[in-house]
């Protein structure tokens, strides 16, 4: 036995894992505590108005982040919906359809797109995607739908563009999870399904059903990434306090981009630093709620089978 082999096994290993875990948990608790302590003043001052009104004014010391909360939820949900469709479709293509020799090439290309720095996505979004979407989607939609989704003459930077850019950015992450799940479906399931005389399409659909919990996990991972993404979204979302945040073809804000925009001179205003910490706490709470929901759903799915 070399010393290295003897190192870390059995109970020792568990002890180490336990302590590392505690350190992580302690860090999270400290972060939440700081957010709460620093943000306390704004919750006392604004109360429920902090999340039910749309105003961000250092001059009047009034802060309500409904507009950013709405923008975060809308872009997050839209981005996940689009990204999941793309992730499932590209996973099926890679696992089931592509010839064997092309598979590694295409999957590594998809993985590579996850490692592009987000600021590059942002630049591309601002200079390529936003004008493109304005011409092919936003302005036609606006003229068709009148003013339900926004004001005419879109510049392309909007919550809608932010959602599309986000979905492109997060789909490689979702794809990686869905793809591996699809690979892990046991061979005998395939064989059994084909032996029943099902068509290829039917088999694929059944396999997707089979891995639906993995898809849920993919959604959760993608959501985590979408909701925290700051710089790229900030570049295309328009950065406007938009009380009518459901008008997704208008510019808006997300909580992350609001924080990035406002922290620099926040200390000049008495309540702006607490407001920023309060917004961060809300962002954290959303993440927690989604995680709990996903865990609950996946448990339900397991027992419901």
């Amino acid at each position, binding site marked *: 036995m070399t*010393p290295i082999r*003897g*190192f*870390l096994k059995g109970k*020792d290993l568990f*002890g*180490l894992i336990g*302590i*590392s875990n*505690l*350190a992580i948990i*302690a*860090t999270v608790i*400290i972060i939440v*505590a*700081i957010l709460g*302590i620093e943000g306390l003043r704004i919750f006392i001052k604004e109360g429920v108005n902090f999340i039910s009104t749309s*105003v*961000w*004014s*250092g*001059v*009047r010391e009034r802060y309500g982040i409904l507009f950013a909360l709405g923008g975060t939820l809308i872009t997050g949900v839209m981005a996940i919906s689009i990204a999941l469709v793309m992730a499932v479709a590209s996973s099926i293509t890679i696992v089931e359809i592509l010839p064997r020799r092309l598979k590694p090439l295409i999957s590594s290309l998809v993985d590579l797109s996850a490692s592009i720095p987000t600021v590059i996505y942002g630049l591309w979004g*601002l*200079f390529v995607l936003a*004008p493109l979407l304005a011409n092919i989607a936003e302005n036609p939609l606006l003229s068709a739908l009148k003013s339900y989704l*926004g*004001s*005419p*003459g879109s*510049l392309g*930077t909007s919550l809608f563009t932010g959602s599309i850019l986000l979905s492109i950015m997060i789909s490689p992450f979702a794809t990686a999870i869905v793809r591996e799940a699809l690979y892990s479906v046991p061979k005998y399931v395939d064989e059994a399904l084909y032996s029943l005389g099902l068509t290829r399409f039917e088999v694929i659909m059944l396999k997707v059903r089979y891995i639906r919990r993995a898809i849920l996990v993919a959604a959760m991972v993608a959501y985590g990434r979408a909701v925290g993404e700051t710089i790229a979204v*900030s*570049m295309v979302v*328009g*950065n*406007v*306090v*938009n*009380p*009518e945040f459901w008008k997704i073809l*208008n*510019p808006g804000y997300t909580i992350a981009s609001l924080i*990035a*925009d*406002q*922290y*620099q*001179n*926040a*200390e*000049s*205003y*008495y309540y702006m630093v607490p407001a920023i910490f309060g917004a961060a706490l809300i962002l954290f709470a959303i993440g927690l709620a989604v995680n709990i929901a996903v865990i609950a759903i996946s448990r339900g799915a397991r027992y419901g089978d």
Partner: protein
Amino acid sequence: MGVNRVLLATIAVLAIVVLGAIAYTMYIQSPKQLSPSPATNMANTPMETRSSSQSSQLVFSYGDITVKAVLPSKPITITGGGSTFVNIQMQSWIQRFRSVSGGLVIVNYQSIGSGAGEAKWFDRSLDFGASDIPISNTTYQRLVASGSDFIQIPVVAGSISIIYNLPSWDENRCGPLRLSGEVLADIYLGKIIYWDDNRVKELQIEECRSLLPHEPIRAIHRSDGSGTTALFTLYLSDVSEEWRTRIGYGYTVEWPRDALGYGEGGRGNEGVAAKVKGTAYSIGYVEYAYAIVNRLPTAAVKNKDGNFVKPSPETVSEALKRGAKNLPPPNAYWGDVPKSFINREGPNTYPIAGLAYIFIYKDIAKDPDMARAISVFLKWILTEGQKPENLVEGYLPLPPELARIAVKYVEQGLGI
């Protein structure tokens, strides 16, 4: 047993990390009473030191000002921070000043934002704070309450350029687009929607009015908090009663035009400039330096005398000279100082002019070497530093009238 020792060591390291994190968070919670932290980049401190008895005297001049300064007897590092606007100029000054002081005075400047600069100076984490606006009322009250005497001085001037993207405009024939403060305020308030609005038209010369299209004006503003927005909205508050009562001025304000869908935010000067460049029929406002360096089409703004003037070192200097006359004492509340440079009279005065300010505590002079170091640095940037060869392109000098007062405040405040 060897394994357990390794485990014990690992636990100890992790415990230290966790305790360190807790200690750090407690540290940032507690107000800082300690003296300023020593310099971060000791690597830059020169190895050779002069004999401590020798105190070399320097003479600086600017316009008709001549000022003497004394170098410290040992190497001193000054840490300052704040305004992002002054950052590029400050770094250039610091670099040139290093050779002026023979490496004896090293200045570090951190571009952390005006608000943070004021706050970190107030809690004495910085030797000097730099900000785009004078000390705020809240901080001033706390300074008075704590009995700490301080001085604030202007260091460099800035201005705002109104930039536009109007494809149908023929600048060769019509000159720059003409705008007035009232019209700008009503555009950003959302009361003037189209380019061919009569109030925009009547500002232009007769034969060019037809070049204004029936297109909505896209008004771009800063989305991040900035001194640029503070100066621009201060001007709008000065010229428009409605702007003053409804919006006010500050680093971040509300933008009523956004709600109509004709307004939008951009991050930083570069974000606003990129949006104006990329959006036909738009206007925006950026730091003068940024517009100059990037050669953006800049509007002429109507001044108090009714003339249309573009920003330039001369036209901004006209405004600063007039404002210099009523500069309050260095330790007074300077809340009204920025207003005294806005919309000043004079045929060739650009109506939007502002200053960046530096704050220092008087008791920093308790250490004679520190007093000498700060004094020689500030005197140099207020005199030699204002000369064109020491200014970064786009930054505007303080007129000698203003620089003289600032030098006097430094000498009185530090006693050297």
